[in-house]
């Protein structure tokens, strides 16, 4: 009788001396502990965060550009749509948006597929506390493998981030477009350019220097928003830090330890501080580059410093 005191299977380890964890001590124990399979998954989740940033930033910028363009439009419904999009994310806690959009988008997609794929369905979609669509409309399909579910969850998160941050970016870009000196557009019109031409050839190339302070601020904010992935159900660094840091008894692991969650979150804190610092330095350089030769106070200061 009795359960085995220790799991019998041993995972392939990076260091050869990790074969007998209970005999290890000090630095070697730590080296083995930090290279277990679960820790590798933890390190990989940093990649998830970076991937989220890499996808979200350009998509949100595109959303923002569209939002700013439509807010400048002269056609009433488009203009109204753009302004509402920009206005709607203010005044409400953003985390509420994250929690809302993830479910709302999921249900929205399933509803659209339901309309398209199951025209013969006669029951209501909302039955009491359930949201019921036909099997063919489920996203992802019930038969799909696990990785499809995970990818779908991640993509929903990306879309949510892009919608929320797109609105922020739209606000920044809208301001930047208005900051370009009026005389520039007037000159373009005097040269006979159409509205479209002066927008793409004069306004857009010049607006970036005005947009950059706002956009770099937004980037910092986006970095700091990434732990919210955890709330959207993605296995990100916060998930793993909670998972790995919790108390481990010898019964379930080769590397028992007490409650180390504090140290894991300290590591995350340091990670974010470092990331912020690096971003600050890089964005400072970009700003210097963009102000070069511009008719702004910053450009003027650079010119004077060089002279």
């Amino acid at each position, binding site marked *: 009788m009795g359960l085995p005191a220790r799991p019998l299977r041993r995972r392939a380890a990076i260091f050869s001396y990790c074969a007998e964890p209970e005999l290890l001590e000090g630095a070697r124990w730590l080296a083995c502990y930090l290279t277990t399979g679960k820790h590798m998954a933890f390190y990989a989740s940093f990649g998830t965060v970076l991937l989220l940033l890499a996808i979200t930033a350009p998509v949100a910028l595109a959303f923002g550009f569209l939002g700013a363009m439509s807010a400048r439009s002269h056609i009433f419904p488009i203009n109204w749509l753009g302004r509402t999009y920009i206005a709607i994310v203010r005044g*409400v806690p*953003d*985390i*509420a948006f994250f929690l809302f959009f993830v479910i709302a988008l999921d249900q929205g997609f399933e509803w659209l597929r339901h309309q398209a794929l199951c025209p013969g369905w006669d029951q209501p979609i909302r039955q009491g*506390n359930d949201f019921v669509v036909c099997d063919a409309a489920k996203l992802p399909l019930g038969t799909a493998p696990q990785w499809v579910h995970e990818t779908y969850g991640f993509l929903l998160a990306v879309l949510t981030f892009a919608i929320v941050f797109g609105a922020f970016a739209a606000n920044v870009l809208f301001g930047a477009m208005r900051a370009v000196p009026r005389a520039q557009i007037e000159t373009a019109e005097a040269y006979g350019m159409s509205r479209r031409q002066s927008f793409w050839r004069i306004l857009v190339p010049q607006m970036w220097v005005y947009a950059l302070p706002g956009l770099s601020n937004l980037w910092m904010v986006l970095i700091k928003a990434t732990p919210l992935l955890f709330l959207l159900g993605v296995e990100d660094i916060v998930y793993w830090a909670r998972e790995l840091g919790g108390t481990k008894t010898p019964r379930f692991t080769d590397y028992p330890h007490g409650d180390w969650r504090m140290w894991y979150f300290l590591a*995350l804190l340091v990670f974010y501080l470092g990331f912020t610092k690096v971003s600050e330095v890089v964005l400072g350089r970009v700003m210097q580059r963009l102000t070069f030769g511009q008719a702004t106070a910053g450009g003027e200061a650079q010119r004077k410093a060089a002279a």
Partner: protein
Amino acid sequence: MSCWETIADYALRSVGVGERLLPRSDFTLCQQFVLIGSGMIWNVYFGVLALFAGFFLATAVALGKAAQSPWLRKPAEWFIFLFRGSPLFIQFFFAYFLFLSLKQVAPVFTPLTSAWAGALVVLFLNTAAYSGEIFYGALLSVPKGDTEAADAYGFSGWVRFRRIVWPTMLRLAWPAYTNEAIFLFHATTLVYFSGFPAFQQRGDALYYANYFADKTFNPFVPYPILAGYFILLTLLLIALFGLINRRLNRHLPQARRAKMKLRLNLIR
């Protein structure tokens, strides 16, 4: 059950007064309104106390960062960098587990493991760092003429600060500080999603909104209600801070008064 009964049962549910059990099925619109509104008590509690206490620390931090001596300047700079450079969400998690460990060492720290004290400390430090940076910026842009005039009149030390520098600093910082305040109230929604447990399901507005969204699987009712409450709160704050702004600017001619321009900071 009429809506009045629901109000009697649940209006103070978030602080533990009234009906103990949360509704489990057949949620009415009234229940959602009342419970989410009840949760707002916590958002207001965290926001008001953290803002009030943070104001004083922020002034000290701003003065520290503007000080000549590196013994004052460096800690202030690090304090601001630490809290502004990392996500509030991670700060909450870290603080919660830190307090849990401290509790093992000394029972004095036990209250800090519950949200009403622990999360308040984090929010207090966090807002102090953000406002400290705002105040520091304002401190640097206090007009030179003002301080020279103060010197000429023989003001020095505390009196010079209290009478000349501080009011001007506040006046310059006020529009940005208003945004910070709004933003802090929004940040209070993170508390119950970051380790701090909601004791006996006494949570804030987002906690209840999330509860309803999970139970009904319908996000289109509770979250807009939450949004409505927060828009009201934001408008109230803007009105309140606008009044203070008017008072701070009352000596200036109409044209030179700082306009309250709403530029919301986003997520921390």
